[in-house]
């Protein structure tokens, strides 16, 4: 009998229309094609989401989160209308109100504050992608208390990169995926730049290039790494410095690169009696001085033909001034960094450390290559080729979120620079507008004037004690104590300290806490239960200690229940946004790019994009940046702002299709009323490629510098040297040594002297109070989930509906544990009781779990018995925002002493087997929240077309 089969329609209609916008299922910001189909009623609905092939970030691919966007867009947890609290805080009792009423309430709280004491408003935004806008609003309001979530995320990496070389990883730069032959990855489960890293890994695997993964946990990218180094958490800096020791000792460093492009040859003041001891020698114009190897004379570094000498010293009036490189040799050749000396502490054998260092050396120098590309450097010297050193690195929060994270990140950048692999073919490459050194960034501003804007941008880069955000009496100007002696270089603020400090009235009390997209009563806070308590605490008069809380979110998150006024945000498919060069751009190493979001569907609820709401509220408060001269509202909504706002003449939120004399042009230009339409026509983004020959050696490449000025990235060419030696840190040390007018409090002097080393060091994080707690506990973010957002997503929550604690084989045996058993995990701060699972590919003294799977009962429109709430759990309960009391009456933050970055990954715990808790529910189990949006349906059959 012959084979019979049905006739199929092989070319069914895919969609009625494709609308191209930008994903927001995580921070990666991929381009997406939203396929719209008519439903049986004839309405266009979102039917399918795929990656946009033309988009610079993802080039067509899309992760699980991105494809599941349709389930985020239709999630039953979406808030429906503005709400005011009618019960006690935390009760979840709300009443829906109109937007007018919501604005009136907000204005009635905020106007009096602005007129008397603007700092009484603390405005902090979480996973905000519009920081250049929200900061403008806060600046115009006049409060110094503004920041986004960088302080509890990855400020150590960002700041260390900026201070060292003018940029770090992810938004700042990327490996040269097309040429690199060895890619070394520190930490990083699925942190940032998620699709580009996966694409990069795919690319280099295809070429047969290799990956070394350094991570206590072998999952994800580390699982596909050719070699895995299961390091002990918190010791990455020591491991890196040991490799630096090996490489320097073997002379396997790029001396030419160091001399030409870094401050290695810059002379350091060696006069111990001078108030400038340890600072860089400079000419009258402030240019660093080096000794020219050809003449033997001192000269500014940037003169034509200068060959900076790494070896020569300068002797003046009996004092020897030595170059940075001398200090480095002295410091890193010390035997305390020898592999044998660090092996045990790092959990990596000495032999392994040597092998890894040797492999870096082998690939950097033996597999070096020349790219046939002429270029001219900033000294005017012409080069026939570009030398490639095909070793590249990447790291994010894994090495950042420790109290030694800043110095560890500096060490990693130093390693890259010593190998000569930054901004060279095969190495690490910046993405415009980076490279941009710390000196080209603003400094922090904190001068408050009632009824007037702040004196400048809140956040920035300090260059010494003079730039700290201190009041005249020396107390912190900011509620989060950013830019104070406790953490002088806190470039992103300290969002994780805001509620704790506001509750303690330290440094002062506030009136209104205004937050956006930050789940502070749950996974975004250390010490979750404690923070919940702070939000609901009342003082003697029966008033809340934090009197007013305004919160904006699109979804029924745990934080909603703790706010007094809710401004409901839209989903990402219903809003305007700009992914701006003024903010956190999406550029590529070869191109400048930015993008928009636009409402591919209109909201079917009474909700508004938060930024549009701020345009309204700003006008009602009379904020100068949001009001016309006649007092009317300046920007009708966020889209209006995106098109019409100009930060500097000719430079606005979007760099594409700006109006020039002869029509739209890229980079600089005037306002173009149809700019958003131009973006939509182009697929939602703008990209302009960097000309060949300008795309490597960017900090020193004259052609790149000129191009960057043309594009409006800088206002004038500004080549610079990489800072192996971080002079601003030395300035803080000088203050701690007694120099200068601004002096640190005595209890911080020793710490500042120690931790603010201008050359990278490693120190163990504060272990006081950790006696008996010997196991490190970590979290990783699963690739198919982002923060707390994933659990409301019907598809994603099936992948990760609960999270076990993964325990290494040796600890499982030692504690008599088997898969599915329950264990109590205790830290000096608290205890959780959770299910465990065995994992062999894990550092033998580390336990871990997936981040932010655990949910509070009743949140996110989930059933109260959802596995996220009954089996899932947060590690946050074990982590305090403060160190255990030291008996000095002071509140010591659990943060990096340089930047204030939250030290999530310093957590030390003890683990023991226990009986399953009642109802076999993870502990602590907090009481259910009342859902303001009810619960989702019992079945989903999501099909738009027939």
């Amino acid at each position, binding site marked *: 009998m012959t*084979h019979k089969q049905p006739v199929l329609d092989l070319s069914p209609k895919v969609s009625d229309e494709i609308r191209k916008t930008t994903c927001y299922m995580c921070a990666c910001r991929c381009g997406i094609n939203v396929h719209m189909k008519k439903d049986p009623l004839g309405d266009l609905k979102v039917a399918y989401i795929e990656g946009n092939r033309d988009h610079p970030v993802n080039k067509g691919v899309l992760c699980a989160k991105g494809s599941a966007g349709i389930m985020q867009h239709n999630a039953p947890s979406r808030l429906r209308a503005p709400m005011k609290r009618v019960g006690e805080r935390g009760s979840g009792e709300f009443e829906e109100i109109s937007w007018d009423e919501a604005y009136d309430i907000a204005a009635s709280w905020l106007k009096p504050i602005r007129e008397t004491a603007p700092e009484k408003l603390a405005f902090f935004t979480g996973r905000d992608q519009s920081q250049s806008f929200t900061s403008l609003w806060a600046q115009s309001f006049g409060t110094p208390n503004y920041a986004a979530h960088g302080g509890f995320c990855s400020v150590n990496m960002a700041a260390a990169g900026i201070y060292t070389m003018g940029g770090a990883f992810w938004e700042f730069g990327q490996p040269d995926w097309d040429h690199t032959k060895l890619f070394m990855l520190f930490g990083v489960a699925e942190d940032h730049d998620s699709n580009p890293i996966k694409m990069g890994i795919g690319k280099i695997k295809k070429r047969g290039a290799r990956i070394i993964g350094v991570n206590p946990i072998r999952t994800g990218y580390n699982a596909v790494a050719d070699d895995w180094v299961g390091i002990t958490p918190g010791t990455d800096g020591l491991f890196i410095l040991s490799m630096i020791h090996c490489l320097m000792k073997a002379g396997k460093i790029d001396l030419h690169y160091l001399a030409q492009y870094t401050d290695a040859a810059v002379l350091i003041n060696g006069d111990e009696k001078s108030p400038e001891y340890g600072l860089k020698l400079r000419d009258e114009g402030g240019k660093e001085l080096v000794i020219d190897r050809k003449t033997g004379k001192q000269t500014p570094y940037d003169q034509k033909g200068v060959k900076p000498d790494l070896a020569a010293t300068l002797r003046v009036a009996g004092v020897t001034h030595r170059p940075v490189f001398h200090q480095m040799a002295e410091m890193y050749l010390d035997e305390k960094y020898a592999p044998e000396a660090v092996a045990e502490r790092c959990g990596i054998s000495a032999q392994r450390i040597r092998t890894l260092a040797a492999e870096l050396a082998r690939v950097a120098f033996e597999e070096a290559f020349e790219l046939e590309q002429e270029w001219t450097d900033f000294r005017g010297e012409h080069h026939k080729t570009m030398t490639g050193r095909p070793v590249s690195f990447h790291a994010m929060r894994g090495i950042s979120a420790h109290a030694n994270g800043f110095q560890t990140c500096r060490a990693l950048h130093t390693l890259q620079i010593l190998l000569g692999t930054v901004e060279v073919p095969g190495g690490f490459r910046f993405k415009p507008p980076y490279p941009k050194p710390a000196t080209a960034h603003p400094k922090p501003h904190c001068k408050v004037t009632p009824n007037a804007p702040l004196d400048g941008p809140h956040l920035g880069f300090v260059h010494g004690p003079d730039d700290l955000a201190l009041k005249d009496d020396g107390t912190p100007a900011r509620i989060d104590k950013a830019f104070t002696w406790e953490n002088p270089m806190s470039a992103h603020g300290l969002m994780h300290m805001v509620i704790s400090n506001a509750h303690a009235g330290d440094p002062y009390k506030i009136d209104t806490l205004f937050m956006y997209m930050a789940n502070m009563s749950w996974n975004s806070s250390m010490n979750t239960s404690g923070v919940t308590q702070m939000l609901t605490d009342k003082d003697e008069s029966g008033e809340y200690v934090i009197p007013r809380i305004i919160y904006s979110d699109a979804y029924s998150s745990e934080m909603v229940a703790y706010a007094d006024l809710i401004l409901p945000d839209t989903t990402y498919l219903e809003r305007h946004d700009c992914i701006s060069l003024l903010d956190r751009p999406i550029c590529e190493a070869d191109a400048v790019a930015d993008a928009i979001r636009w409402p591919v569907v209109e909201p079917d609820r009474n909700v508004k994009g938060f930024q549009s709401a701020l345009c309204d509220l700003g006008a009602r408060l009379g904020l100068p940046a949001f009001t016309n001269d006649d007092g009317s509202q300046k920007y009708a909504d966020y889209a209006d702002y995106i098109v019409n706002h100009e930060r500097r003449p000719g430079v606005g939120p979007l760099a594409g299709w700006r109006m020039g004399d002869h029509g739209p042009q890229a980079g600089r230009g005037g306002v173009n009323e149809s700019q958003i339409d131009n973006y939509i026509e182009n697929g939602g983004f703008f990209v302009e490629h960097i000309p060949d020959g300008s795309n490597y050696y960017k900090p020193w490449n004259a052609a790149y510098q000129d191009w960057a000025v043309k594009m409006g990235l800088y206002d004038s060419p500004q080549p610079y040297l990489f800072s192996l030696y971080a002079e601003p840190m030395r300035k803080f040390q000088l203050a701690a040594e007694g120099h200068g007018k601004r002096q640190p409090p005595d209890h911080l002097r020793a710490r500042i002297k120690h931790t603010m080393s201008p050359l990278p060091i490693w120190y163990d994080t504060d272990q006081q109070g950790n006696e008996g707690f010997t196991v490190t506990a970590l979290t990783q973010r699963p690739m198919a989930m982002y923060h707390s957002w994933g659990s409301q997503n019907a598809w994603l929550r099936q992948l990760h509906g609960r999270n076990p604690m993964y325990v290494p084989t040796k600890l499982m045996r030692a504690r008599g544990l088997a898969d599915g058993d329950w264990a109590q995990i205790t830290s000096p701060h608290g205890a959780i009781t959770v299910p465990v699972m065995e994992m062999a590919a894990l550092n033998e003294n580390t336990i871990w779990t997936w981040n932010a799977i655990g949910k509070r009962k009743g949140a996110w429109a989930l059933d109260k018995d959802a596995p996220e709430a009954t089996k899932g759990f947060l590690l946050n309960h074990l982590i305090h925002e403060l160190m255990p009391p030291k008996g000095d009456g002071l509140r010591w933050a659990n943060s990096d002493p340089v930047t204030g970055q939250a030290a999530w990954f310093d957590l030390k715990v003890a683990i023991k087997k226990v009986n399953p808790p009642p109802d076999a529910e993870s502990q602590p189990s907090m009481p259910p929240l009342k859902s303001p949006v009810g619960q*989702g349906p019992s079945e989903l*059959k*999501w099909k738009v077309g027939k």
Partner: protein
Amino acid sequence: MTQLPTSTEKKLGLVIDLDTCVGCHACVISCKGWNTENYGAPLSDQDPYGADPSGTFLNRVHSYEVQPSQGDAQLIHFPKSCLHCDDAPCVTVCPTGASYKRVEDGIVLVNESDCIGCGLCAWACPYGAREMDAAAGVMKKCTLCVDRIYNENLPEVDRTPSCVRTCPANARHFGDLGDPNSDVSKLVAERGGIDLMPEQGTKPVNKYLPPRPKDQLARQDEQLDILAPFLEPVATESKGFLSWLDKTLEKI
């Protein structure tokens, strides 16, 4: 018709690279999205916001820990969907003819309007490639995106299964495994692609590329000889180092 064709013109299938798959589940959800909206009944979800959520998926990513006799344990992410077997037992057991293998390209499909939902095909499949949809009462399985790969409404470059198009790490490859000169066949030959459960006699079309050998740098004895020269010290302390530096700079 549940008799298998004696031969198919092509053997379309997937090649999955276990050396590259990072376990991100992108393919899982892209598949869910496309196949919910397209071929046949939507892939439904029961209790999607409740205590026991459970839905139909045509592609799922497992992970395995492998402990070699020496060295560190390894972790391997393992995507799995229908392997479009040459000797597909799921087809021959079907009592209604709903399950069939296409003669043009070897794709194994379910004609949902003929499916009585008896589940026998899923019983016959050793790979767990078929899932009964609880709402539609019919068997769902990977269609190799038969409604994409020939779809003239899609640009040519997009005529691939949605899991392949979306895979960020490029760990999934689609092509004709019956043609020894196709890219996928060459990849399989080059990397030693394997069958899953070959002893089941299903002759799967989809192939898996095994992980490359791991932790070679940890093989101390071998690496020592190769790499040790790269760390030959130029000096033992900083003074010696500075004189080496001076000499070396002379040569640059």
